[in-house]
């Protein structure tokens, strides 16, 4: 994208016609507005995600694997958002790991994040070698989502289930009390 912009700028400059300058400027403006409105995604392979699943600091991490195409995931997302909001000042961090397809990042994922004003930290996992990384997250996970991992340096629990807010908060309390 950057290359394209540079190209367009060069084109605008080199052609020296008002028309081209206008086009280049318009494109620049569009690009600028988008980058302000939509935060850029943090896209990782499993090696990049792994450090987020094994931190040994003072925080408790609630890691939810989800995707915009997964209806039960979308249904429970507000509970994770609420948890993040309620507990972020109590050494808790919620991480939402999206498994959306790369082709859907701009079309679906970014608009979804915007529309729902997600405040939790969002990571995007793009790693096709699922057979090798799924069991590393948890040996019992077969790959169906949603799943959630809650951990801190003392305790670690994997949940192959969905949550309502009370259930989720109840689980978290076992880590922070």
């Amino acid at each position, binding site marked *: 994208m950057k290359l394209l912009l540079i190209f367009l700028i060069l084109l605008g400059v080199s052609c020296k016609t008002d028309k081209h300058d206008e086009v280049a400027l318009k494109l620049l403006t569009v690009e600028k507005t988008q980058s302000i409105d939509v935060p850029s995604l943090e896209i990782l392979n499993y090696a990049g995600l792994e450090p987020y699943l094994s931190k040994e600091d003072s925080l408790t991490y609630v890691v939810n694997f989800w995707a915009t*195409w*997964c*209806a*039960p995931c979308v249904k429970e997302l507000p509970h994770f958002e609420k948890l993040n909001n309620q507990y972020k000042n109590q050494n808790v961090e919620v991480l939402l790991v999206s*498994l959306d*397809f*790369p082709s*859907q990042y701009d079309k679906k994922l970014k608009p979804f994040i915007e529309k729902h004003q997600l405040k939790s930290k969002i990571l995007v996992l793009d790693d*096709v*070698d*699922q*057979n090798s990384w*799924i*069991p590393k997250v948890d040996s019992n*996970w*077969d*790959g*169906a*989502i*949603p799943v959630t991992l809650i951990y801190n340096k003392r305790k670690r629990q994997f949940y*192959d*289930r*969905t949550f309502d807010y009370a259930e989720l908060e109840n689980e978290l309390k076992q880590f922070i009390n």
Partner: protein
Amino acid sequence: MRFNKIITLVITAFLLSAFTNVNTPTVIQGYDIGDIATDFSLRNIDGQMVTLADYENVKGFIIIFTCNTCPYAVQYEDRIIALNNKYVDQGFPVIAIMPNNPIIKTGDNPKAMKARATSKGFTFPYLFDEGQKIYPQYGATKTPQVYLLEKTNEGNIVRYIGAIDDNYKDVKLVNTKYVEEAIEALKNGNAIEESKTRTIGCSIKS
């Protein structure tokens, strides 16, 4: 949701065993490699009932739990067609089963299934697990999910459970075609190297 279902199953099984005094399994675990898979009679998109026992002269079955609405399943549609085209004449036909509850996933209702199969040109049965009785016995949790069965005198034995291949995103970048490798191993009397694989998929909606 799934947790609730397990609880319901446990309670149902308990009540059944309490009232009828028969041996009922308390929790349905699903199949592991080497288990004998149940046959079924499920309605195809053409209205006909399909039963594994009706297939003569086959060596096994490629049972695939799949649906219209899961992006992973859609991503694999062409590869499922290719699998059937390659192996149906070698004695391993594809049997696709749609396990979702169409009341929850309306895009998976029998009419939509028929429309999808017609537009994609499915060359294999696309069955509706009406009442959702078959997928729990297999232990399927998501779509797409493959169970490769070998037909023997004792029944249809589960030989492989898992993904079709190791790259959902790009068929050109696939390194290992798990199902094909398993079938080739079976045909040659070799051990299947990877008999269980994992992949992300859409939870079956019940």
